[in-house]
């Protein structure tokens, strides 16, 4: 008898172990419980899970999109899951690499620098949308980033079009008008910065010497990247990169930059009014506007260009796109959702621009009202129509699959360039060699 009980207990134990192992671990941090969603028990409900990372930006926007779509399609339930960007990438990597189909979302947000990496590392994991979406309506540079072997994956989302955001009041104090800041070179930028420092005591830029963001802006403004056409590292035969490295050193030596470390200090530098400008992607507008006391004091100009002929006053930093997982059970619904909202709903794009500051790469949206409206925070400058103009000029660049490796190799050697321990040419040579060895090419 006792034996029997022992057997039963052990069997229950084993089963419980096995069953918890197979359990479905769908966790959602979605908080918007609109009535349409609570129909999961009714038959015919199709559930879509979305992974994204920024609660103030892409999560909020996805929730807006959800509200619009589920109103017309009450049988669809959309679950927006929030994760830190690093966690999302780590989770996506692990699940895709393990080969299991459970635990994946239906739609996932991927940063543009990482897109080719995922497409090449996990062939067949993402749905081919070439015939499903009209890509001629999206910015060309953006579509190229999600094209592999002639097939297009993903739906373009926000743009990282770069701008030179500046404080009108500080620059006026130093004797500069808006026209003086249009289409300048980085050398002119440094001269202006010196004047600003002299007249007002303010720094021109917040600058993280270990961050490669500005360098990527400079590179893309010249239509160059860390790699050649075949994806081989190209540091030594790359005039744009050499010029960018020299400019980095010049910026630091000129004394016009306030050195910061990391995102928070960088944002604090312009929020506190320590710096007169910030050169970065359009997504920074949200952070600039966070300091409401500076309302009306800001202005926008095109990014400075490098001292070489191929460089233009337009560039890009960051940006991301939506991808559909191929093994998703509700793949068609997921595609239809993205198509209807992100590739067709003009009002939606006006709404997210005004409310969330999301600058779309969907071209028809840029003729909408919100894009041509003046922004009081920027002294009634029509910044969004200006930004659409810049966006058209962004030189397309193939980021390849090793952007972060290259970034790390270059930024790793920069301290020696700053201190003058090593010449720029030697540094590029050394970094290129290091990168080649690291990625085994």
């Amino acid at each position, binding site marked *: 008898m006792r034996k029997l009980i022992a057997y039963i207990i052990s069997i229950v134990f084993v089963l419980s172990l096995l069953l918890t192992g197979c359990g479905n671990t769908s966790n959602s941090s979605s908080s918007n419980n609109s009535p349409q969603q609570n129909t999961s028990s009714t038959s015919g409900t199709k559930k879509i899970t979305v992974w994204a990372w920024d609660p103030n930006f892409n999560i909020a926007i996805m929730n807006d999109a959800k509200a619009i779509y589920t109103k017309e399609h009450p049988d669809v339930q959309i679950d927006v899951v929030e994760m830190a960007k690093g966690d999302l990438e780590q989770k996506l990597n692990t699940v895709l690499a393990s080969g299991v189909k459970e635990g994946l979302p239906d739609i996932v947000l991927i940063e543009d620098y990482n897109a080719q990496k995922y497409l090449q590392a996990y062939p067949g994991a993402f749905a081919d949308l070439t015939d499903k979406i009209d890509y001629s309506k999206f910015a060309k540079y953006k579509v190229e980033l999600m094209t592999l072997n002639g097939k297009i994956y993903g739906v373009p989302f926000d743009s990282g079009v770069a701008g030179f955001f500046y404080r009108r009041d500080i620059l006026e104090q130093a004797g500069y008008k808006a026209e003086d800041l249009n289409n300048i070179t980085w050398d002119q930028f440094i001269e202006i910065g010196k004047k600003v420092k002299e007249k007002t005591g303010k720094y021109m830029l917040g600058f993280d010497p270990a961050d490669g963001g500005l360098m990527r802006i400079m590179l893309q403004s010249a239509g160059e990247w860390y790699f050649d056409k075949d994806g081989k590292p190209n540091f030594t035969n790359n005039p744009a990169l050499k010029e960018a490295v020299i400019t980095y050193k010049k910026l630091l030596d000129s004394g016009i930059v306030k050195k910061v470390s*990391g995102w928070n200090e960088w944002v604090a530098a312009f929020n506190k009014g320590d710096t007169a400008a910030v050169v970065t992607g359009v997504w920074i507008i949200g952070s600039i506007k966070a300091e409401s006391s500076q309302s009306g004091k800001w202005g926008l100009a095109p990014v400075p260009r490098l001292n070489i002929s191929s460089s233009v006053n337009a560039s890009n930093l960051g940006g991301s796109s939506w991808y559909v997982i191929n093994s998703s059970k509700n793949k068609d619904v997921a595609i239809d959702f993205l198509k209807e909202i992100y590739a067709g709903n003009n009002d939606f794009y006006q709404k997210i621009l005004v409310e969330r500051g999301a600058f779309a790469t969907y071209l028809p949206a840029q003729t909408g009202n919100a894009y041509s409206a003046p922004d009081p925070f920027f002294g009634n400058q029509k910044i969004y129509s200006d930004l659409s103009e810049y966006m058209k000029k962004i030189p397309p660049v193939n980021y390849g699959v090793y952007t972060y490796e290259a970034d790390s190799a270059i930024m790793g050697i920069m301290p020696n360039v700053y201190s003058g321990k090593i010449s720029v040419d030697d540094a590029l040579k050394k970094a290129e060699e290091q990168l080649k060895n690291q990625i085994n090419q």
Partner: protein
Amino acid sequence: MVGNEAQTSLKSKNVSYERILNRYGWGFTFFALILLITFLFYPIIYSLYLSTMSSKGIVQKFVGLNNYIRLFNDQMFLIALKNTFTFLVIQVPIMLFLALVLAAILNDKSIKFRGIFRTGIFLPAVTSLVAYAVLFKMMFSLDGFINTTLMNFHIIQKPIPWLLDPFWAKVTLIIAMTWRWTGYNMVFYLSGLQNIPYDLYESAEIDGTNKIQQFFYITLPMLKPIIIFTTIMSTIGTLQLFDEPMNLSSGGVTASSIGPGNSLLTLSVYIYNLAFKYMPNFGYAAAVSYVIVFFAAILTIIQFRVAGEKD
């Protein structure tokens, strides 16, 4: 006769009873064993197999020992290795020495409020690794608490670029780790000190030794097993150093380099980058993790040899 029979039957009963006990024993450990095999042994063996592959995500190819050969040419790996050993060689001795001294002082019965001091020094060990790293990052920023304080006391003229210079970044990390882990090791020493019989000190005092002599000739030798233990634990901990450099460096996951000039890049961070930040090469990442295993084993053996010969 009868007694003899009874004895043999008892014996056989004993044997079968032992058998039953054994069976139950295996029955109970069975589940733990299964768990151990699936979650410990299997990953160890699988990662060894994985380290012979080169992969781009799920696109894998067999490369044999090439991953290990590749390590020697990979400067980024060599930087990580060098950084890890720098931290190991400098931070561990400083921390253990401090812990030992603090433990010896706080073991003295004549000191008042010992409990408060002990708690105060141990307290950092219960803080979250991420939280304290972020806090240190704020305190050590260019216009952060440390620089302003030092400048107010006129100890330095210019702010020290703590996290913006390769050398100072390393210093910051060492200070942070020492703050976090000294108390933890001190507790081990304290418990070790309680086990040293007081007679030894008494007789030594009668023989005319001073406190310092007592420390070197009684305390240190008696604490040797504990010292070896803490050294090995700290060595392994430093070889796996991850949270602190990841969080002290500019932007964590999205940072261009881990610390200025990759000065905070450790082996574990490099493994993370290889698997999750860069082109996902799980095979190569597994090979790097075996390097950590290799060094941990070697260093442990050396420490045992150096310290444990006479026992």
